[in-house]
């Protein structure tokens, strides 16, 4: 909750910032074959006046977006129960509903959401709980309800109460483009522009505690890595070297930032100790070494290198200094991101001239191509390892899209304006 309050404070500081730009919408393009039918009944508002947020609607969109649930249309509901004695299972069975979610929202300084989940077939209450927080964080509280319900019904913790960073670009035919670094909820709602620039902004990355971000900005007409605190807004320029300053990646313990610098000739991976700002060079090769990412145990890094002629993913062991090649299928595999289980690696792969998102299982060494569009890049995996967010082109515009790690669920998040790219899914923020 401490994080929640701090973020609320930050949002109030940022309210002056433009929010209309690059607001994302969601279009589900593919779900599982037999989604679970769930009725999310409008939660009863027990405060004064009108409810500040339709909690049930947020939860329903979350579950629907996962592709694993088929929500019952509100118009079809025969009643809006908000407590157990008002639940008539027969009504819900008639609608082929498998699960029923009801709830109550009250306000006493804090917003308090009570929810109850019922199994319609077994006619039993299977879960229930209370989520509390600041009223202006109502949507995030609703996402926390979604997380609980999702976990109860799938066995996997939900990742709805998380955030996204992304870069959007608005073309300016008469001059320089507008680049914006935006922070939004995982459903694209409540976008906040963190940085607006006429020069490129790229490579946003989260700190493991979700309180800080790092990114590259060309605002000085040269690339430099910046670090920004989401709570205080405090910003610090970390690098200003000749050549590339790119691809920042936070270590799992939060103390070190991996990055790419070409100050010593060709692009190599470096580690910066964030307390002392001291740099350690990791790779030494005349080829391109770039796109470092940490294994969850913090003991090794994956990176992209064309030392073998074409870009492939390599692994660098920080204890032994040994480097081994990881990808062998196809002639272009790049920009790895690793799931928290340390097993699934998502990356960009080239097949017959097109660039797709693929997933590599480090245990079985099997690679599965997840997407079929042509210019897919920048994959970012949800903290629960279930979905991969990436950027692609749709009708000649850059948009974000998502695919489940088994390829079964797909949705798009087109923006109302501009090109959107480089999504970065936050770590868990409320667990």
């Amino acid at each position, binding site marked *: 909750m401490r994080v929640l309050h701090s973020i609320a404070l930050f949002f109030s500081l940022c309210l002056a910032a433009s929010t209309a730009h690059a607001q994302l919408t969601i279009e589900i393009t593919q779900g599982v074959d037999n989604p679970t039918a769930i009725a999310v009944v409008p939660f009863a508002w027990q405060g004064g006046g009108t409810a500040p947020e339709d909690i049930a609607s947020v939860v329903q969109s979350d579950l629907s977006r996962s592709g694993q649930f088929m929500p019952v249309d509100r118009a079809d509901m025969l009643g809006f129960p908000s407590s157990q004695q008002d639940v008539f299972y027969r009504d819900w069975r008639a609608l082929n509903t498998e699960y029923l979610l009801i709830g109550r929202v009250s306000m006493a300084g804090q917003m308090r959401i009570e929810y109850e989940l019922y199994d319609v077939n077994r006619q039993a209450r299977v879960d229930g709980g209370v989520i509390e927080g600041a009223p202006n964080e109502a949507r995030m509280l609703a996402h926390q309800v979604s997380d609980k319900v999702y976990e109860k019904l799938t066995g996997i913790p939900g990742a709805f109460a998380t955030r996204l960073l992304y870069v959007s670009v608005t*073309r300016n035919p008469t001059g320089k*483009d507008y680049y914006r670094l935006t922070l939004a909820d995982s459903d694209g709602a409540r976008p906040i522009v963190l940085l607006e620039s006429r020069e*490129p902004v*790229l*490579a946003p990355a989260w700190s493991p505690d979700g309180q800080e971000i790092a990114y590259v900005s*060309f605002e000085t*007409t*040269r*690339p430099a890595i910046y670090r920004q605190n989401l709570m205080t807004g405090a910003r610090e320029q970390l690098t200003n070297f000749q*050549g*590339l300053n*790119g*691809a920042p990646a936070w270590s799992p313990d939060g103390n070190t930032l991996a990055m*790419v610098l*070409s100050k010593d000739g060709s*692009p190599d991976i470096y580690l910066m100790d964030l307390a002392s700002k001291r740099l350690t060079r990791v790779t030494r090769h005349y080829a*391109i070494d*770039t*796109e470092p990412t940490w294994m969850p145990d913090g003991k090794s890094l994956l990176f*992209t290198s*064309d030392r073998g002629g074409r*870009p492939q993913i390599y692994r660098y062991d920080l204890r032994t200094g040994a480097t081994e090649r990881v990808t062998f299928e196809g002639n*272009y595999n*790049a*920009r790895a991101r690793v799931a928290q289980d340390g097993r699934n690696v998502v990356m*960009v792969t*080239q097949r017959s001239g097109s*660039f797709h998102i693929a997933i590599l299982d480090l245990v079985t060494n099997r690679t599965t191509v997840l997407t079929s569009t*042509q*210019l897919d*890049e*920048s994959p970012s995996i949800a903290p629960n390892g279930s979905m991969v967010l990436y950027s692609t*082109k749709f009708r*000649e515009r850059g948009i974000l899209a998502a695919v489940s790690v088994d390829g079964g669920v797909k949705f798009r998040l087109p923006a109302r304006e501009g090109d959107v*790219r*480089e999504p970065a899914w936050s770590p868990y923020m409320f667990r």
Partner: protein
Amino acid sequence: MKHLPVAGKALTVLFTAAFLVACSSSDTKEDEAAAAAAAAAAEARAAEEAAAAEARRGQERLREAAVAVGTVFYFEFDSSALLPEAQQALDAHIALLATNDDKVRLEGHTDERGTREYNLALGERRANAVRDYMTLNGIASYRIETVSYGEEQPVAYGSGESNWSQNRRVELK
């Protein structure tokens, strides 16, 4: 480069005049010598001015040649090798840069295919290829700044080789 020998000639005339002045031993010939020196100096000044004008014309010709070849040099897919036409164009810029102290900025770009960070590295390779060609041909490296924008700043939006080929480039600024 033509203006340099002209300036050399002017200097020779000037030195000859000074030598004559220094060598005149007779007082009666002082006036004559002074007149000759003045004439020589005037001649030298005229020659200098002519040389400067010629130099300006020469530089103007070089500038026109550099403008004519443009400031954008194109590359093949996933390659940082300088194409023959890019080398020719660069030769014109190098000839001009040899006559002045201007600093240049080389901006490397790629098409949209491939990952962003890899493309930043590829864009840098392209800018470095142009820089290396310039330094090899006598332009001091401190006068050259290189920056890679990767795929971030296309000039042709949209996909397909007709757009991509315009975006794989180094721009001289």
